[in-house]
């Protein structure tokens, strides 16, 4: 049973933005977080702006230098897109284990990002690809980096009158490794205990780019920049990788909760970052580490 609320159904993006600008309302996309929250907290009287009719917010565009997906792109849309496995490998890996089929058909990337949860699975892969988000309001449009968009636990830079209309990034160059792993308390549909996405670019035997995005181990999804910096310019030996992974674990600020303790989360970050970096380095550099 949902509490009573007001639902406005704008037929166009302009209408939707005008309604948002009027204040005291929130956008409703797939509803997969918002509706359970409403039901649990039972507060009547909300006003929601439905994005259901806004087809322009869906669609994934690929060009040589840029990939852009509309804010209302669903997780299933990501899985259906034949170019996504090369445009964002980690994003596809994540989508395969995101919730269950029906939720994937409804949940949107904008909804997942804007909920601001540190366990939002969509975020680590996008962060590992240096994604940017586009925010639109009646006042105009702005684009900012995803890492600047995430401010704090369930707090983003989205102003109440803005919609997140697109997420974009530069598709990884050939030879880039982009990996994701979700650690949960069961293999199917679980709130993430630790989420890891890494990107490694190598030129010859040197790592020229490293991204390590971590979910569920801090108030927001974040990049372990200390660990990243330790990799850039280096040839990644097992020791270098392990040191970086330990650094990433130190950079976390995990909590104890019903799913796991902070101590375990740090350990898992160490293990998973090490593992993913090792795999990524093998792919990116063609070098095999056999210890």
């Amino acid at each position, binding site marked *: 049973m949902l509490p009573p609320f007001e639902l406005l159904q704008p037929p166009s993006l302009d209408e939707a933005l005008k309604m948002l600008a009027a204040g005291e309302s929130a956008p409703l996309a797939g509803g997969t977080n918002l509706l359970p929250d409403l039901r649990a907290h*039972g507060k009547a009287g909300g006003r929601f702006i439905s994005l259901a009719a806004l087809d322009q917010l869906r669609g994934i565009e690929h060009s040589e230098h840029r990939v852009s997906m509309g804010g209302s792109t669903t997780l299933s849309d990501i899985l259906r897109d034949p170019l996504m496995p090369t445009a964002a490998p980690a994003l596809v890996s994540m989508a395969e284990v995101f919730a269950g089929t029906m939720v994937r058909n409804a949940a949107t990337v904008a909804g997942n990002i804007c909920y601001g949860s540190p366990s939002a699975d969509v975020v680590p892969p996008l962060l590992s690809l240096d994604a940017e988000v586009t925010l639109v309001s009646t006042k105009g449009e702005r684009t900012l980096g995803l890492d600047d968009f995430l401010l704090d636990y369930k707090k983003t830079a989205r102003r109440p009158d803005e919609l997140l209309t697109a997420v974009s990034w530069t598709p990884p160059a050939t030879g880039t490794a982009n990996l994701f792993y979700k650690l949960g*308390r*069961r*293999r199917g*549909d679980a709130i993430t*205990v630790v989420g890891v996405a890494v990107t490694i670019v190598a030129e010859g035997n040197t790592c020229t780019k490293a991204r390590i995005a971590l979910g569920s181990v801090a108030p927001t999804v974040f990049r372990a920049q200390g660990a990243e910096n330790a990799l850039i310019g280096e040839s990644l030996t097992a020791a270098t990788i392990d040191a970086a992974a330990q650094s990433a674990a130190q950079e976390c600020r995990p909590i104890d909760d*019903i799913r796991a*303790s902070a101590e375990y989360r740090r350990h*898992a970050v160490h293990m998973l970052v090490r593992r993913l970096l090792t795999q990524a380095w093998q792919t990116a550099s063609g070098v095999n580490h056999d210890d």
Partner: protein
Amino acid sequence: MSKIASPGASAANVNLRQIGKPLVRTDSPPKVYGTAVYAGDLTMPDMLYAAVLHSERASALLRRVDTARAKELAGVHCVLTAKDLPASQGVMTDMPGQTGGMTKNTKQPILAKDRVRFCGEPIALVAAESVSIAEQALSLIEIDYEDIAGVYDPVDALAPGAPIVFGDDNIVASYKVRKGDIDKGFAEADLIVENTFTTQYQEQAFLEPEAALAWVDEHEVLNIRSSTQVVEHYRAVADAIGLPHNRVRLRAEFVGGGFGGKEVMTIEVWLALLALASRRPVRLVQPRERSFLSHGPRHPFTMTHRTGVTSDGKITALQIKLTSDAGAYAKLSPYILLYATVGATGPYRVDNLQIDSVSAATNNLPTCAFRGFGTMQANLACEGQMEEIAKALGMDSMEVRRRNFIHTGDANVTGQIIRSAVWSDQCATQALAALGERPADTQTTRIGHGVACYQQSYGRIRWMKDSSEAWVGVEMDGTVIVRSAVTDIGAGQSSALAQITGEILGVPMDQVVVYFGDGAVTPLAGTSTASRALYMSGNATKMAASQVRENLLGCAARHFGVEVEELDMGDSQVFAIDDPQRSMTLNECVKLCAAEGIHRHNLAIFKAPTSEGIDPETGQGEVFPDFTYGAHAAQVAVDIETGEVRVLQSIGAHDVGQAINMRAVEGQVEGSALMGQGFALSEELILKQGQLQTGSFSEYLVPTSEDVPEIKAIILESRSGLGPFGAKGIGEPVYAPVAASIANAVADAIGVHIFELPITPEKVVKVLREQEAAS
């Protein structure tokens, strides 16, 4: 998918045409077509909707419960609290049909009056024109709680000075088993191994939440149609609300999963009260979060085994301590503790034995029945201990088991002689063999194989003097009807009766109509619990069908001028075995009987063996009718970096006595494999100071399709059971060894046993790090 092996089985003396075959269950089509009706699907004109206010505090006095604003809300028809209830107040949660002595404190208030003892205790009931108005009314009820000291752990609850939950002390039940000479046994041991095992709360997580519809009809009979495992609850409902038994009619619809969670009354009394107060039909489907609070989860247990063994693995002495958390009200805790006590030694013969078990009251959720009913928790400890003993002795654990298996003719824990087949060894051997070759470890994963055996009872405790009735009849046109109040909770309870009747009367089972679950109109069959439905109702049905067969064949024999033994029934015909052309249809036979005034129907009662209880000092006595034996084997892959455990193969091998419907039997093994996996690895209700932290399916994690391993069922048939055609009860037995087999497999993979369930990745990492630090 399954292999039937019956080495040494007693010769089958019946040529079974339908029994044992994997036939389509009679309830399958409506369930698949979506036409099956569940309690929450029922509607009536002028129906009201109920909502229940559950306590938000675990231990508090109720200083004020003010329903005035709720009552005033338009569309609200009644709001009931404890002060509106009849003087009897209490709901008996003792097992129905019991004639033995009442255990302590089994009465639980219908609605909390002055005090709440657990977070979730019902305080108020609302009936309104719509669900949304009912929910609004709940929010208008004002409650002033005054927190009082509570106790949230059985050890704390049993310590001197602990806050008392109810009664004089927090001991809800206790048992003692004393057999042989424990000191002598330990003196004879070459080695003593001691370990403590703990298991967690498990939520039944049936897909259908509690649901029922109640109304008072034109004869002033209170009708309830409910998702329940027990039709006989109508008596307890009647007593609780002050009606005579013959004015309460309880009908059980198809139950969307019970597993014991719908074995005691859940919402029936609430709806009865609202229906009486409002004089309208009232329906309730519990929202999932409230469902978690509306029935009792599995008892957490702490179990210590101290085992003396010789150097070749023979058990010389066994000392066991069991403690369970009963929660805030007794419910079935005393019985669950008894089952755990009897199951504590597993399928082994132990002559020098001491068991002390206790169930303690706390301000946690009142725990209650769940598949296995104490035995499966006890089994985890017993089977883990087998592995630890083997490890300490440097022996293979199956060898240790073989040294100690109980055999037919031996006396068990309580001195009861086991009379049916004990095929534990064959089952375990086949299950393990079916795991096949062990795949290689990788750099980060370790493969483990584990096995566990068990001894699980079927049939209820003997001193409950259990019985079950069934009616079988043939219509004038030769079609067949079965009537039994058995409840169908998804394991094919009603279909089995059609299959048995079809076998006896030679009629295809899909042409037998079974009327089930109606307390007023179908003969009472007893509970669908304790793995007894097939045993009890199956036997009653077989008896009734057999009497009808005898009557029909008698008539036909007289007509043909032959002996009854020369006739048989099949394809809805009665025919001469040596000359099948000499036949008549069932239709014709029935008309002959009618002409002779011979009954074409029979009401039979099957009575289980009884006893008078156990000795309070020694625990000796005959407790159960019989036991089922088998084993489960698991292959796991453990990620030694993250601690994640993946089950690769899960194989159950069980002697079911005689499979009635092979598909249903295999289905039980398969379902239990996954449910046991959840218990072993991912399921845990977490309570903090009595407050539930895991109150939905996002936090309480049952295995999903992505978690399913390769599951196999190996079915053995000794035909030695007490059920129809030699069947044994299987619903709980097949579940008993699963978690233990997985725990043992993990231990095999990582070289160290984890004694606490669930085996989370975190626990695996912890023991691996401790192991590393120690070396």
